[in-house]
């Protein structure tokens, strides 16, 4: 699946993170390969979402946090002083658990990021809207409703709109935090399908909402338990023949 040569996109080194005195991540190290779907899975409270939010520095605004260790993207420390956070976040898109269209029309939602980045030319924006919606497998369904409120779309469409919104910035990495937890199976299938197509161009990190989804989508998978990275290996391997007893028990449904 992963091709002949795997290049590392993101490298996490000895990362520990605490907020409010609680350790959310304990000395986590892993390398995330480019152009694959890497899955973070495990029971709630394991630190998956925290790790995602650290990769695009969304937790910067929180008070009372402590962090040690490093995160590198293409070899650059993203927490190095002087890093342009907005630029980083444009390169690392994020899609959240609940479909969250911003107030405004479908078009405005997709154009939001590029406009913030200073893009104004109409024809370029049109093209971005088309390309992003196309990649998110949404264009055919809503091409006639670009100017209706984003809230009028169905839940599955809204979530794919959110993916399109992130893609509009042509990021290099796409972080997805349980993107299908609020969706029905058919919409879930559509979102997953669009992910398969997207990994040619992007590095995808997915927190799945079920083990089945993890097994369906993962090229590589990392199992998190109580802030600890228990096991990290190829998806085929971990879901059929886990090395660690704890991951095996979780995968086979004995706890979690």
């Amino acid at each position: 699946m992963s091709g002949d040569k795997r290049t590392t996109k993101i490298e996490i080194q000895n990362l520990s993170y605490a907020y409010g005195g609680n350790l959310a991540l304990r000395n986590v190290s892993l390398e995330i390969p480019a152009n694959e779907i890497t899955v973070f899975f495990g029971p709630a409270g394991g630190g998956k979402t925290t790790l995602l939010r650290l990769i695009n520095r969304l937790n910067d605004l929180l008070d009372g946090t402590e962090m040690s260790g490093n995160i590198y993207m293409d070899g650059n420390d993203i927490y190095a002083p002087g890093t342009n956070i907005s630029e980083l976040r444009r390169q690392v898109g994020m899609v959240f658990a609940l479909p969250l269209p911003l107030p405004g029309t479908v078009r405005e939602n997709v154009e939001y990021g590029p406009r913030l980045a200073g893009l104004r030319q109409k024809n370029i924006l049109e093209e971005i809207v088309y390309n992003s919606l196309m990649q998110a497998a949404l264009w055919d369904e809503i091409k006639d409703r670009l100017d209706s409120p984003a809230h009028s779309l169905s839940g599955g469409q809204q979530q794919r709109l959110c993916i399109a919104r992130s893609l509009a910035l042509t990021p290099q990495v796409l972080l997805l935090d349980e993107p299908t937890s609020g969706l029905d199976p058919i919409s879930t299938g559509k979102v997953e399908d669009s992910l398969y197509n997207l990994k040619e161009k992007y590095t995808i990190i997915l927190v799945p909402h079920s083990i089945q989804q993890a097994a369906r989508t993962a090229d590589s998978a990392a199992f998190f338990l109580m802030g600890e990275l228990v096991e990290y290996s190829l998806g085929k391997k971990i879901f059929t023949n886990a090395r660690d007893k704890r991951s095996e028990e979780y995968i086979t449904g004995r706890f979690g």
Partner: protein
Amino acid sequence: MLDTKSTDQPYRKWVEFAIESLIRVIGFSSIGFVFLIFLFLMREGLTALLDVSWGNLLGTRWYPILDIYGVLPLLLGSILVTLIAILIALPLGVGTAVFVREVAPGWAREILKPMIEVMAGIPSVVLGFFGMTLLAPLFLKYLGLATGLTAFTGSVILAYMALPTIISVAEDALDAVPKSYRDASLAMGATQWQTIWRVVIPAARSGILTAIMLGLGRAIGETMLVMMVTGNAGRMPLTLDSLFRPIRTMTATIAAEMGEVAQGSSHYHVLFALGIILFLVTFIINLAAASAIFRKRRRGGLR
């Protein structure tokens, strides 16, 4: 066991019924009171139309001693003072709300919020006194006016008075914007300021509109403060410099003249007619605010 239950039942039913009826009476009585007030106002006010001609009422001069009852200068006075007050209070109020909710660090918020509530509790007489003795001489000196007691002075103090209402309602509206909106916007590379300006405020739009309406309603009905600082000269505010001249509002007129008017005279009835106008204006403002809230609910609070 079974026995006690069966004897208890009718008694409990009766208590239930009594309490329910009591609550119902209390609830309906407030509607009844509003209705009665309205009826009384109408009875006393509409008779003004029998005593005084339309031409006189819609005139531009208010000289009750000469039986000249033009309400236009008073109506325009009220509107001018209120509008300017809101123009001043709106950016300040929304700005403060944004600061308290979005920008201020935790400790500053803890101090600011109770301060704002204290602000709301200052009696308007005290604010009026403050305006008379502090602001009016200040404006007199530095703006080169003939008197410090002007529409502008009134507006500034009214704005101050409407601020706490606007701040706390606007802050609630900002608070109701899901945190995830902010995350979503930040995640796309927006700065905190871009997020506030392009996502949070638009999302809280209808709540902010409600804040403005409530502030308006509070400002237009205010009496004591306006009577103390606006100078109470019933002239038409038609020229641009009217803002820096004395003015007279409907509320101040009613408060100042009702005490000495002969009951049943045409002057008395015209004052009630002013009350009707005031009532209608506040009613319309409240209606607009309510419909804004309603719209917000229907959209699931998202816009």
